[in-house]
């Protein structure tokens, strides 16, 4: 069993990293693609296997396979320790699942000097993995930044015509946030007790959880962390980098950005903010939830007016993220569990959405909603896929998003009736903008751009079907995901509750 030689987190981390580095030295573009796909599939296999060891019931074995720690900077009490808990399993799986999907669906697309492209993609995957498995604040920060760099290069090299400015804004914005977080991390670190003989403080997650800071300290530390994560997610009003970046980024990258990278923020909120600064969370939760709820409405309203499909998806995603943020800070079982499931669902759904948009863009040569129309006449298959995906995005029952959004709204409602009610307006608005687009793009009469039919390749059909099936399965039987993340949620809520007393 792999787990006995290399623990799963290591494998998940190193496979993409090493293969990514190798990719740079492959010359032929076809073999590059094959190699990248192969690597991502290998990662997927590992993560799937790891899911079988995610059961915390027989704990020793579980721990053995999923946690490891090496000496790193022992003099300042930071060790290279990585591990997988429920949430880690979930998100590593999402990462591992989305990459092969993306590679496969964009297999036809030709990127110039593709070895660099795929190499960076794989490095980015490694970065994500690192963030999700990090059990040490410094390691976490390390990968948090590392994930950003490939994204920067991918977007500004292979993106649209205004790519450089847009991506640069994105980079500077997030970089600032994370630097602030770094200072926060350092401050917290200096409050931690010594866990090892060599250093008198420690960066390990354990140490971070073990301390109880003064409320006065927490109150300003909170913002240092929150800013970084809020920008990454992005929560209103820190979202302005997102539409531009999504508009400019190449499709396969934007799939990753919106599908996985955004989850880094959510993940970090849950792992590094809530349990570490509980009293500050208790102090500011209303404010934050209010912000998020405003964000939902705000983004939905603006999404109504978008004429560019990419920007449209970007805004709708902001709305969803807002809901996640609100649910996190509702600090309820329902809310947090909902977020867990939603992280997976949102990942799948938005990637699916991008895939379809990509196909439309490639085939018709336009992203302008006003220039499209009547696609359903010529290419019914695409229409059906899109409609299902769109319905998943507006959280129609029996699609995956319904479960998660139901729980998140429920959580927010428990947190505050009025906030909850206000947030729920989102479901109406989401229906409005989604159906608008469905109608304008697929129904009605064909336009000059949509004269000739779009024939889906077999590969695309297969991938979209896989996605649709997973959408439905997760929509009808989400129980496994709950079981996966149950312990994490319980643990975090318990910490919050203890701080409450």
């Amino acid at each position, binding site marked *: 069993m792999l787990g006995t030689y290399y623990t799963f987190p290591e494998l998940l981390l190193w496979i993409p990293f090493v293969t990514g580095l190798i990719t740079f030295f492959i010359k032929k573009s076809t073999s590059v693609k094959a190699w990248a796909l192969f690597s991502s599939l290998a990662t997927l296999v590992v993560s799937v296997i790891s899911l079988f060891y995610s059961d915390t019931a027989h704990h020793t074995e579980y721990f053995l396979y999923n946690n490891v720690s090496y000496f790193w900077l022992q003099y300042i009490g930071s060790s290279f320790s990585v591990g997988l808990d429920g949430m880690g399993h979930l998100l590593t799986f999402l990462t591992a699942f989305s990459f092969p999907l993306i590679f496969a669906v964009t297999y036809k697309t030709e990127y110039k000097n593709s070895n660099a492209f795929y190499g960076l993609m794989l490095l980015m995957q490694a970065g994500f993995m690192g963030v999700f498995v990090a059990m040490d604040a410094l390691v976490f920060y390390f990968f948090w930044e590392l994930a950003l760099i490939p994204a920067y290069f991918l977007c500004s090299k292979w993106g649209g015509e205004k790519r450089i400015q847009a991506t640069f*804004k994105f980079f*500077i*914005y997030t970089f600032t946030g994370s630097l602030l977080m770094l200072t926060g991390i350092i401050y917290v670190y200096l409050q931690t007790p010594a866990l090892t003989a060599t250093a008198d403080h420690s960066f390990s997650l354990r140490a971070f959880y073990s301390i109880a800071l003064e409320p006065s300290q927490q109150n300003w530390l909170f913002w240092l962390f929150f800013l970084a994560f809020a920008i990454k997610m992005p929560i209103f*009003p820190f*979202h*302005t*980098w997102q539409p531009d970046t999504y508009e400019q980024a190449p499709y396969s990258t934007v799939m990753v950005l919106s599908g996985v990278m955004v989850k880094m923020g959510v993940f970090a909120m849950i792992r590094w903010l809530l349990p570490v600064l509980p009293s500050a969370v208790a102090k500011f939760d209303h404010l934050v939830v209010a912000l998020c709820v405003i964000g939902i409405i*705000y983004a939905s*309203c*603006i999404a*109504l*007016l978008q004429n560019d499909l990419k920007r449209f998806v970007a805004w709708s995603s902001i709305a969803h993220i807002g809901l996640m943020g609100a649910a996190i800070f509702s600090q309820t*079982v*329902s809310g947090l*569990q909902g977020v867990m499931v939603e992280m997976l669902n949102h990942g799948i759904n938005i990637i699916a959405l991008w895939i379809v948009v990509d196909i439309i863009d490639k085939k018709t040569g336009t992203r302008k909603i006003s220039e499209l129309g*009547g696609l*359903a*006449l010529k290419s*019914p298959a695409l229409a059906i896929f899109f409609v299902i995906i769109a*319905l998943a995005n507006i959280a*129609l*029952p*029996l699609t995956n998003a*319904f*479960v998660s959004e*139901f*729980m998140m*709204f*429920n959580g927010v*409602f*428990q947190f505050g*009736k009025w906030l*909850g*009610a206000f947030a*729920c*307006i989102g*479901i*109406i608005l989401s*229906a*409005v903008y989604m*159906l*608008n687009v469905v*109608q304008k793009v*697929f*129904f*009605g*009469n064909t336009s000059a751009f949509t004269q000739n039919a779009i024939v889906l390749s077999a590969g695309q059909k297969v991938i979209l079907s896989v996605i649709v099936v997973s959408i439905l399965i997760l929509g*009808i*039987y*989400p*129980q496994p995901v*709950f079981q996966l993340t*149950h312990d994490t949620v*319980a643990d975090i809520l318990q910490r919050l509750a203890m701080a409450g007393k």
Partner: protein
Amino acid sequence: MQRIFDLVYWIPMLPFIGFLINGLGRKAISKTLIGLIGSGVIFISFCLSVLVFITTSKEGFSPQNINYFPFINLGKIIIPFEFHVDQLTSLFLLIVTGVSFLIHVYSASYMKDETQSGYGRYFSYLNLFVFSMLLLVLGGNYVIMFIGWEGVGLCSYLLIGFWFKNNDYNNAAKKAFIMNRIGDFGFLLGIFWMLSAFGTASYQNLFNSQDGIITSISAINSPVIVGITLLLFVGAIGKSAQIPLYTWLPDAMAGPTPVSALIHAATMVTAGIYMIARSNIMYSLAPTSMVVVASIGLATAIFAAVIALKQNDIKKVLAYSTVSQLGYMFLGLGVGAYTGAVFHVMTHAFFKALLFLGAGSVIHAMGGEQDITKMGGLGKKMRITYITFFIACLAIAGIPPFAGFFSKDEILAAAFANNPILYYIGLAGALLTAFYMFRLLALTFTGKFRGTEDQLHHVHESPAAITIPLIILAVLSAIGGFVGIPEILMKNGHALGDFLAPVFAHSGPVTAHNLSGQTEIILMTTSVILILIVSIWAWRKYKIEEPAAIVSETRETTGFAKAIKNKFYVDELYNALFVKPLQVISNLLRKIDKSAIDGIVNGAGKSVNYGSRQIRLLQSGQVGTYILLMVIGMLILLIIQLFSK
């Protein structure tokens, strides 16, 4: 016989399978086969429903709660995927499966002009609808009900926009879905509140006679209950097209006629009534909400009926009449006549489906013409349609012994018991109903033909696949009422009431009639007499022999009449109140985003650039200046260090 409950899940499952087959194989399978599958699966589940019904009607039957798997399990909140079967369920099962079976058969012929794949699409949608509707009815808790609830909404969206080339249809479909969403918004909040208040959403735990949470709540009108019930009612308003969310239903007539019959008359729109009847215990605990329900129902009943007076589109008339009939049902619920409401749902399903199908047959014959001012005298050409339609009119107008009479009478009686004023208004509504129905009948089937020549040649009786369902429904709406004969006319004749009694047992005190025999008789007779008079008046008024006279209907009216003709400008009002403002706000927000929020972010960058441009001027290149600045810096440091204490 109990083992039937192990098969219950097949009732929704079969239509779902039908949906899959027809949906995926819509290109492969031949039309006839598609039709067969589509109707066949429904028929099987109809038979199953009959079995279920028989079982439930047995003595000493106790409600069944069938738990399949945990849908959402949060430890302390568990929402299982469960079915709940009792008398109410089984009755609705019968109605849904029965009516939809007939309509499937009808559609098989009605839609035969569709393209191969379109035909398949149609039937798959229809099956999917039945599936969702059955899920709604069978669901063992509010969440499962909600799943069905939104499912039917989706199907109605898909079916209204079935001919998606036409953007007006698409708009109608979108309107329907969004208005439903607004309702669902309330419903959802209701569920959330329920969950946070009671920690459960399944009927079993809420309404169980022994240890039900609600039943154990003694406080009448506790804010929680009122809040929840009102929120749920918002959902019902959306789904069952009550004021203020009714405007989607008339537009929904854009869909194929059988769809209007099935979804927008017989089944889906009655989901609201089902839901409230289902949660009758809660409502009985919240009289305030009851009042709200009753008043909204009554208002809708009158309002819609008034609008219906001046409509010339045959389907629009029927649509408004549906709205108004639904209003009656809510009135019934509001005054606690749950049985009456359900009874009316049943009868209404029969005669309204019949009316729509008849209308469909007429439109079919007229080659798509829907304007009644261009019809007339069709009775001679289309005998069966005419007669069945006539029966339906009698039924809906409430003329004994047809079905509508009994159900409507029960509601009105209960209303009188509750508060005479409700009764009088209700009666007025009934008269209006009688009037516009007979107006419709007369204009369509009697008098002289007003259409074009070739239409006249084209007119013919529809084929058997269309007429048979008509006949069956006609029979049902003729005799369907006898399941609920009032006590005073026949000792324990109210079979339906006895059947449903256990469901509404807990809200007994509210539902109890306290009317003396003769009052009831008097009410009945008066109403019947009045209705008859009105009907005959309408009949004579619109039995137009010479086409010229029709101008009275078509010409530009003024004042109140004009307002009625234009449906009181409600759509325009909503446009001005909600749609436009949303646009404006969104625009505003977009501007804010560009200028303010993004402005701040970019402003930071700009200010850095600006600062850079300014600060670099210090670097003047002059040694003298440099030394001067150094000295000044030194001065400042010295002063701080030496004199800051």
